[in-house]
């Protein structure tokens, strides 16, 4: 275990895998967070765009904010989605960047990758690609991305400095980082920070 981090990154990763494997297989199950179309509505996504997507493309969405709310993507941009899950934000990004753009979704869960690849094929989104990988080691070359998006994933990474350094590495100079994540307005006690169950639930 890295003694500088509040929890063991490997143990946390396994816990996150277990939790989100369930979201992939059982999206309408009893989770501690909202999922799918009700969540997209709550976070202000374009209802017409969400309605146009098949259920499989939306149902495992488990973001915490809307990465497109402060800046819409521009046609032709190259985008990395760090922690793409079921692919929902990649499909929104694909709509915004258009067929001349490119969207690479990165996720560590084979169940989510299979689901997102199937949905992309179903929707005919040839500008979207999904790769298996970790946020701490993103499988994208240096400076490739015009934009990095992410939604509700960085808070699940134990080593945030390494994670943000990777997001920085894949961005080109002048590139944009636009992401959704949670923040607490009241301090979390030190013993709670060391409780992996609280990180994921």
């Amino acid at each position, binding site marked *: 275990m890295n003694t500088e981090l509040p929890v063991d990154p490997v143990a946390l990763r396994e816990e996150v895998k277990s939790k989100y494997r369930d979201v992939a297989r059982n999206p309408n199950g009893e989770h501690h967070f909202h999922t799918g179309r009700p969540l997209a509505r709550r976070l202000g996504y374009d209802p017409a765009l969400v309605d146009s997507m098949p259920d499989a493309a939306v149902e495992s969405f488990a973001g915490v904010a*809307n990465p497109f709310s402060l800046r819409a993507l521009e046609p032709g941009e190259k985008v990395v989605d760090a922690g793409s899950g079921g692919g929902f934000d990649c499909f929104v990004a694909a709509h915004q960047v258009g067929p001349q753009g490119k969207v690479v979704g990165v996720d560590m869960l084979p169940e989510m990758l299979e689901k997102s690849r199937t949905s992309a094929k179903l929707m005919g989104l040839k500008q979207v690609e999904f790769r298996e990988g970790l946020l701490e080691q993103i499988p994208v070359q240096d400076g490739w991305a015009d934009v990095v998006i992410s939604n509700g994933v960085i808070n699940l990474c134990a080593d945030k400095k390494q994670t943000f350094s990777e997001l920085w590495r894949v961005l080109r100079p002048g*590139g944009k980082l636009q992401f959704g994540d949670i923040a607490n307005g009241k301090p979390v006690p030190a013993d709670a920070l060391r409780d992996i169950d609280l990180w994921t639930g």
Partner: protein
Amino acid sequence: MLAEIGFVDIQIGQPYDTFGEARGEKMARLFAVYGYTFLASKPGSL
């Protein structure tokens, strides 16, 4: 941490009541947890 890494022009959007009416609402309220959108730039240009 964004600024520490080197990002500039950092913006934070309005809070989302992400966990409202969800099973995790009680814990979220305990620590005032909300969802936020963040926007930042890597300095430089192509």
